[in-house]
């Protein structure tokens, strides 16, 4: 009887040891090794090192004229469907009406519209000019969250935050469940009707890795969109000037997503 007890204890010890060995077994790749491995050539010049950059976009609402060139450029560059339902970036027109004096309110109704995402430009607001308190355009795109809800909900690891600050979708691996589309608090994702995967702004990853600006920044006529690399900010970098001189803020800061897309001149009505 005593013999059996000892045996069971021994056997359990051995099992525990085996379980321990299994738990320790998965190999850990050193950051340095990974770094060396993920330098990649991209057509021109030097190898691109994703660990050597941190991309950031800032948008000056005071400079946006609502021409919609960014929307066009984005669709052409990234093969986004041309229909008025799918956008990686779009522009919204906000019109805040004057309040009726009798109500005692400061502001009237807020009207937001985005005909075809701004692809064809914007006609003047439907509200007569004398009734407008203020009106402005807000370009929207993926907010490049530091804590991205879309990556957190992906069940297969097909969407992820890259070391250089983009949030990308692996089209080969995405199974099209659409969780990320629902998780994005900024509505910046859609299901691609042909590819049947999630799709979103890649920050023109194929352009920024070649040393070019994203297409929307490239064509913006008023430099309302400024794009730069936090790890390589020159003394005269427009991004540095922007961060130092403007009071920039992110959309929905209470969600704790810490977006890397910042807006200057943001109105309280913008969500």
């Amino acid at each position, binding site marked *: 009887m005593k013999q059996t007890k000892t045996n069971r204890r021994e056997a359990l010890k051995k099992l525990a040891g085996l379980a321990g060995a299994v738990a320790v077994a998965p190999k850990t790749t050193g950051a340095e090794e990974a770094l060396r491995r993920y330098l990649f050539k991209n057509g021109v010049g030097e190898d691109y090192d994703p660990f050597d950059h941190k991309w950031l976009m800032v948008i000056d609402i005071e400079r*946006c004229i609502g021409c919609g060139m960014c929307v066009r450029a984005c669709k052409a560059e990234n093969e986004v469907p041309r229909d008025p339902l799918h956008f990686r970036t779009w522009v919204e027109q906000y019109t805040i009406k004057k309040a009726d004096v009798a109500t005692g309110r400061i502001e009237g109704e807020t009207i937001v519209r985005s005909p075809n995402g701004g692809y064809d430009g914007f006609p003047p607001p439907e509200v007569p*000019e004398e009734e407008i308190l203020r009106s402005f355009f807000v370009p929207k795109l993926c907010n490049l969250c530091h804590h991205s809800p879309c990556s957190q909900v992906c069940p297969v690891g097909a969407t992820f935050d890259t070391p250089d600050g983009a949030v990308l979708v692996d089209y080969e691996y995405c199974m099209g469940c659409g969780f990320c589309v629902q998780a994005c608090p900024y509505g910046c994702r859609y299901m691609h009707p042909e590819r049947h995967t999630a799709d979103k702004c890649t920050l023109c990853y194929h352009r920024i890795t070649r040393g070019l600006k994203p297409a929307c920044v*490239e064509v913006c006529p008023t430099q309302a969109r400024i794009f730069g690399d936090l790890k390589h900010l020159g003394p005269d970098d427009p991004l540095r000037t922007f961060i130092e001189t403007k009071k920039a803020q992110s959309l929905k800061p209470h969600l704790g997503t810490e977006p890397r897309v910042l807006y200057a001149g943001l109105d309280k009505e913008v969500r």
Partner: protein
Amino acid sequence: MKVPPQIVRLLIVTVVLVGSYFVAKSLLTPPTFGELGWYRAAALEELAQHKLTYAGKQECEVCHDDIWQMFHAGKHQTLSCEGCHGPAMRHVDDPENEHLLKPGSDQCLRCHQQNPSRPDWYTQIDPEEHLEGECIECHIPHNPTEMPEEEEASSEQ
């Protein structure tokens, strides 16, 4: 010491279960998954291989140096060539056969039509009150404060 048969059976079952987990994991996990994080690290490079459609402003200077000079002396210097002329990568690759758009007045009005949503500092016109005709009759698009006649006169001299 003799291991009882029920423990042997338990061990075999455990080894088979744990082993099949690792076999399934190695078969189902794609290469490079997990090397940088919870994703396929190779996806970074794959996404970076997407083809370019917009060439970038600096490509235009290579051949159109004359327009480039005039353009950067005027108020339109912050614009991208491809904003008005459309994506240029095909033209850069094959300048003889692939040509870009010559935009009309509608392209001017896309930015300059009066709109209360536009900021006050920005130049806007009401096309009904502004002079009639095509914009390029009075403005050189590459340097919009200059008149085209002056340019023609100076080139004739």
